[in-house]
């Protein structure tokens, strides 16, 4: 019986050694180790053995079984690895092909700039205020210290609807409306973005419709030095921490003193480049201390309250910030233009 087992082992090992197909391996496993397999068949004859022989043969049988199982196991593992290898090979993708993107829209570059500026001022404690785009002559001019026939009305040619109604030429009427709505309460700290309209022929730097953002602060002890401090903080957040400002005297009917504000060129850092026309400075803001007549029109006593206001053109800031050369791009809405303004 022992010989029988040894022969079986030799035969099985020889056959299993040569197997190269998982199906054949399985067939051989059944053939030798199955319920009706050859090893089982041999062991079935164990009953006729003597009590001394039985453990000896039993041990031999176990060794034979072990050897067969081991080789089957090894073979199975090889086959499985092979199969995995084949599958991985078959499933390979071309990683250089493009993926499916998330839908990509975007906000208009002017909205982007407006929101950016709003957020800076919201962080500084400003409320965002709004007003109508069609204004009365009173709010657009008179309450801003530009009575009819005032020479300064030369500066802005307007779109009138009637003698008394016009498309606002500036966001400043919102200042008066806000002051009147606040009914003398202080402090007032607002920022007002919006569309404005002037009779300009469209060209690379002019558009009859454009956007402004205006700020107004009124309080009991607001100083011109606060205006400087506020604008200094704003330009650093907007254009970078090393940006500086320069104030030049100017004239607006609704502020006194009035200032033009230049920022140090954020492209060249003030060295002089094409953007700043070699001057090192970019003119971006008009500002000043609120004129006493305007305070009065808004319901604030100029002896008790003072304030400052500032305003800037959104298109101009966007053009400087992104290096855009033609203002008409904003209103043509060419997809290849508007879709450029995304991400950080």
């Amino acid at each position, binding site marked *: 019986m022992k010989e029988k087992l040894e022969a079986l082992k030799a035969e099985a090992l020889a056959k299993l050694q040569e197997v190269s197909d998982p199906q054949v391996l399985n067939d051989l496993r059944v053939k030798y180790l199955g319920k009706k397999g050859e090893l089982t068949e041999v062991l079935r004859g164990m009953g006729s053995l003597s009590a001394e022989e039985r453990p000896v043969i039993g041990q031999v049988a176990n060794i034979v079984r072990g050897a067969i199982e081991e080789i089957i196991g090894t073979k199975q593992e090889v086959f499985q690895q092979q199969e995995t290898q084949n599958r991985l090979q078959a499933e390979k993708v071309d990683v250089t*092909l*493009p993926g499916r993107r998330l*839908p990509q*829209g*975007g*906000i*208009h570059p002017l*909205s982007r700039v407006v929101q950016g500026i*709003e957020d800076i*001022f919201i*962080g*500084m*404690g*400003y*409320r*965002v205020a*709004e007003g109508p*785009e*069609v204004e009365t002559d009173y709010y657009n001019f008179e309450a801003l210290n530009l009575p009819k*026939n005032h*020479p300064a009305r*030369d*500066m802005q040619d307007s*779109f*009138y*609807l*009637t003698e008394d*109604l016009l*498309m606002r030429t500036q966001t400043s009427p919102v200042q008066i409306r806000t002051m009147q709505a606040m009914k003398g309460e202080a*402090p007032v*700290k607002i920022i007002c973005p919006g*569309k404005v*309209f002037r009779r300009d*022929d469209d060209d690379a730097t002019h558009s009859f*419709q454009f956007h402004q953002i205006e700020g107004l602060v009124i309080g009991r*002890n*607001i*100083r*011109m*030095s*606060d205006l*400087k401090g*506020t604008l*200094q*903080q704003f330009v650093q957040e907007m254009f970078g921490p090393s940006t500086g400002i320069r*104030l*030049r*005297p*100017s*004239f607006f009917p609704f502020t*006194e*003193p009035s200032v033009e504000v230049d920022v140090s060129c954020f492209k060249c850092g003030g060295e002089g480049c094409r953007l700043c026309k070699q001057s090192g400075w970019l003119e971006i803001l008009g500002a000043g201390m609120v*004129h*006493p007549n305007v305070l009065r029109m808004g319901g604030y006593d100029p002896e008790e309250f003072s304030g400052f206001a500032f305003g800037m053109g959104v298109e101009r800031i966007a053009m400087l910030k992104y290096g855009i050369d033609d203002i008409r791009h*904003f*209103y043509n*809405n*060419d*997809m290849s233009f*508007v879709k450029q303004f995304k991400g950080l």
Partner: protein
Amino acid sequence: MKVSTSWLSDYISLDGVTADELAEKITAAGIEIDGVENRNKGITGIVTGYVKSKEKHPDADKLNVCIVDAGQGEDLQIVCGAKNVEAGQKVPVALVGAKLPGLVIKKAKLRGVLSQGMICSAKELGLNDKLLPKELQEGILVLPESTEIGLDITKVLDLNDEVLEFDLTPNRSDCLSMIGAAYEVSAILGRELKLPQPEKDIVEAGGSAANDISVRILNEELCSHYTARYITGVKPAASPLWIQNRLMAAGVRPINNIVDITNYVMLEYGQPLHAFDADTIDGGILGVRLADEDEVLTTLDGQERKLEPHMLVITDAAKAVALAGVMGGLETEVTGSTVNIVLESAKFDGGTVRKTSRQLGLRSEASLRFEKEVDPNRVIPALNRAAALIAKYAGGTVHEGIIQAGTDVVEEKVLTLSLDKLNRYLGTDLSLLEVKTLFGRLHFKCGDAAQGLIEVQVPTRRGDISYDVDLIEEIARLYGYGNIPTTPIEGPTTPGTLTRSQAIRREVRRLLSHGGYQEVLGYSFIQPEQSKLFPALTGEGLAVKLAMPMSEERSVLRTSLLPQLLDIAGYNTNRRQSDLALFEIGNVFYTEEEVLTRQPHELPMLGLLLSGTRAAKQWNVPVQPVDFFDLKGALETVFDHLGLTGRVVYEGDAPEGYHPGRSASILLKGPEGAVRIGTLGQLHPDLQRKLDLTDTYVAEVSLQPLYEAARNKLQYHELPRFPGVERDIAVVVDTAVPAGQLMDSIRENGGSLLQNVQVFDLYTGGKLESGKKSVAISLVYRHNEHTLTDEEVAEVHDKVLSELQQTFGAELRK
């Protein structure tokens, strides 16, 4: 205003300050200097010469051979091609080796004849020859006979001069004069002024002017002061070169000595003057009054002007002879044969002059100055200055006395400035002495300061200064804006916020842009026909027209965002970009008034446009055209984010401009019923064809109702603890039955157990009889407190089904 530094030096020393430095200082103190122009464009070696003879060139018809004495010891032979060259002229001569802009003069042979230099034109000398008479523009520059020879031309023409271009803001009309500019520079540099003293220069003779002329003002409110002088025996001729040089530096054309002197004094004092030929003034009487209806006047330019009763005129005994402050009359003009003149200096009302000059399109250096209000205290000095110069340079005799009407006394304003307020206002710490010193530099007199209050006397030349803050500005700009400290705002802090509507707009913008829609910005002005393309969500409103549009294309305020979105779509489609998903947030306008008397309604709207394919052509994504439900889904997402799901319904009522079968009105249900807040759908094929677009879907929603209806507060709902039971049904109904109604019925009958209803398939044709459709709907039932039993579900579900059968004749498809 062009300010010649050479001229300016008459009044103030500019020693040690270059023109560029001066420009920088003036800009820093408030008047922007637009540019500094050197009048010498780089010429050297040009001297004055005398043309002794002129012979025709032997071999060239158009050339002359001139013998010129240029003070060089030997006469020069110069070939000259100018038509106007003549023997006996004094001319500028470029010697051999001379430099002109872009040119070096060499000894040369012209058609075989030696030329030892060049006789120069004004243009070759770099002068603005547009200011010269035509014959001098075309030929050589001819100098006055009295010119000495051999002099450096840059000295003769005063070319070693730099001109500052003052870009004046409307308040600083005081600098529309050389003296005003001198005051400004004096304040900036802290240097003394030396001004002309015409009353000392003037020599009166020839009897009292009152014997020959008189003046009167009928409308004193429009002319506060009218003055005149009578000058006889003038000899009109070319002005001395120095006057011409200065006029040209200022950009003013030299004409003759009388006119040039009035212009010179206008530039010097800022006070426009006018000279009449006295012998044409009927009765020697000059009057100031408003024009009569239908009165006419032929002005200096030869045009007959029809006058209106708001225009101020100067009259003689019989008729209007000039438009006050705007332009003189042709008939009383000073000409070459004029002998006696009346010189006028007056203060006319700025607004009146502006209105007249604008209406007639006659804007001049004079009207510009009157419009901004001239200094009343310079009316007489300017008159005297001009009279003295005319006597000196045009040979006239100034008769005794100034003939005048109106007031010549204008008091200087006195303002009180608190030193404390000044420092509080600016954030500075200036002392009384510092402030008084700065006022001193401005030539503003200060009284004694009591308790920190300074009395400041404001000269009449500074009409822009009316309030203490104006004085504060003067101090600030001279002190230097750069020297004002930088401080943070003191006082209570305030929270920075967006309003609810702003926050909602930002949310919509964020949502749509992240969902693939690109924001665009259109114009607020559209064509009138465009305002009629789509239904007015604006109610029964009328479009608002611009009074004076720049073009028909942009002549009414938009009543809808859609026309602009379609324009933008067209613009991009023409550029091969037709896969578009666009949105705009902006205002539309309408009014109920036929004639506008108050502000029109302004409504914030959301507009959307969709066309082309869902995604760009790509290897692993099928190309699918967008459809109605893509756009509707975008809106549903927006409404869902605003917490309005369930309150928004869609009605297929075919709004104007839309495809009748693929469009809907959007209604918002509220306590008072449903109101239409928007429209949605495919563009009507006719309109689409007209606009040359591909299949395009648009929507427009009024935002105001959303601001009010949107969820106020986000609230947590407890998560379900018990499993839901799902039932899928397929309902066969007439195709005309809207799915929305089936859903509404299911929701109503499903009651509180029904958690979710979803259409998951739609089927027509095939085995279904025609006119029928099968709608597959998935229902989820759930109870919050326990697991539903089959019986509980069946009870509700059966009710849902039987209601569908009864109401819609629905048949359940197996």
